[in-house]
């Protein structure tokens, strides 16, 4: 990837030598577990990779508010409603911490938001699935947030300082999300037949998309090698996926629900749960914009942004008026 960066900015031979030396000392800092800070020298490809990853992460938090926002007004009790509202508010906060971290790499907030609204940027595939019943609020908290936590805990040690600090805050707050989801599932699975069925149906629909959240299998992943060397990524997609499956199977058993995978079996030798084949074609389609809700999600974000324009304009006009008055006084 570094050669690519050199190609983008053709320099003299002298400069290349200097960059090679800088690259080496940069890698040495990473190997020594030092954190890279915004004003430090960094390879162009490191900056680009992180800007992409952190902004995609931020977009995911923001779009992630939509599937759950769908059920706030229909929560079955005030307790559930307050919890769901707090969770969605947290997700907004997480999006904002992450945008701030991405901006330290030199891309403005406006550009980042624009990339989301125009569909140029990607966000997590999971948020392109619909939330059809109340049980989906349980399944999302338990499984989607559970998978997100598996992904995010190693990011607390990411080599880029602002990202790792944002992730520490996010992870601290995220554990309530998973617990409230699981509690929801416990209540439904101990309820009447219809409630139990609703919980099982939600699990059936969310299980496979959750396994896809960890990204393509290691053999097919484009970004992993360089990201591992730069300590942006600490575990491979398949390693994290396996951790998630191992942690989740006993939780499903406790609920008395069945994971929708006939091939799921425990391997006594390795101590791991082996799962069936993931439908990567579905994953590809959802990423490419053809999931069940891609168009809805983007339309909702664009509508919210357009309808908020007058508020932003008014706030700026008011600030400007006060500044002018102060200057005149």
């Amino acid at each position, binding site marked *: 990837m570094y050669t690519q960066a050199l190609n983008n900015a053709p320099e003299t031979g002298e400069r290349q030598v200097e960059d090679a030396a800088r690259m080496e000392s940069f890698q040495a800092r990473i190997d020594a577990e030092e954190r890279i800070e915004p004003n430090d*020298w960094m390879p162009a490809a490191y900056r680009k990779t992180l800007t992409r990853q952190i902004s995609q992460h931020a977009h995911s938090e923001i779009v992630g508010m939509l599937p759950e926002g769908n059920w706030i007004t229909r929560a079955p009790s005030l307790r559930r409603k307050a919890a769901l509202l707090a969770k969605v508010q947290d997700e907004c906060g997480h999006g*904002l*911490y992450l945008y*701030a971290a991405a901006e330290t790499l030199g891309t403005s907030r406006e550009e980042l938001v*624009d990339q989301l609204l125009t569909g140029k940027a990607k966000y997590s595939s999971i948020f392109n699935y619909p939330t059809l019943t109340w049980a989906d609020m349980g399944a999302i908290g338990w499984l989607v947030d559970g998978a997100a936590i598996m992904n995010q805990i190693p990011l607390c040690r990411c080599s880029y300082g602002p990202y790792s600090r944002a992730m520490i805050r996010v992870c601290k707050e995220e554990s309530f999300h998973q617990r409230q989801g699981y509690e929801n599932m416990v209540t439904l699975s101990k309820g009447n037949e219809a409630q139990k069925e609703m919980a099982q149906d939600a699990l059936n629909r969310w299980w496979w998309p959750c396994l896809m959240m960890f990204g393509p299998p290691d053999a097919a992943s484009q970004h992993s090698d360089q990201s591992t060397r730069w300590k942006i990524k600490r575990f491979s997609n398949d390693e994290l996926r396996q951790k998630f499956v191992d942690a989740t199977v006993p939780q499903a058993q406790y609920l008395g629900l069945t994971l929708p995978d006939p091939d799921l079996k425990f391997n006594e030798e390795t101590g791991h749960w082996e799962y069936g084949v993931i439908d990567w074609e579905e994953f590809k389609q959802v990423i490419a914009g053809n999931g069940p809700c891609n168009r809805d999600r983007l339309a909702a974000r664009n509508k919210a942004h357009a309808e908020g324009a007058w508020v932003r304009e008014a706030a*700026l006009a008011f*600030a400007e008026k006060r500044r002018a008055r102060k200057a005149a006084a």
Partner: protein
Amino acid sequence: MKDIFPIWEVFIRSRNGLAHKHVGSLHAADATLALQAARDIYTRRGEGLSIWVVPSSAITASDPADKDMMFEPTASKIYRHPTFYEVPDEVGHM
């Protein structure tokens, strides 16, 4: 996009007696809105008793390239630390 809000740095004092600590940044049209946004974004779980917001543009930072010149001299002055000095065991804790 024409609606560009300036960036503010947010500092929070967690308990009485501790100093304000930098927690992150945000975008807001003016100081009042920056304080409100800081409250929503950075204190949802009782993290603080006081907030400062400072326009990012008002901060002057040291250059990472000057790190050695700025901070190396402290490393060679170990006599500034109490462990540099020997106190006889008989005297006990000092």
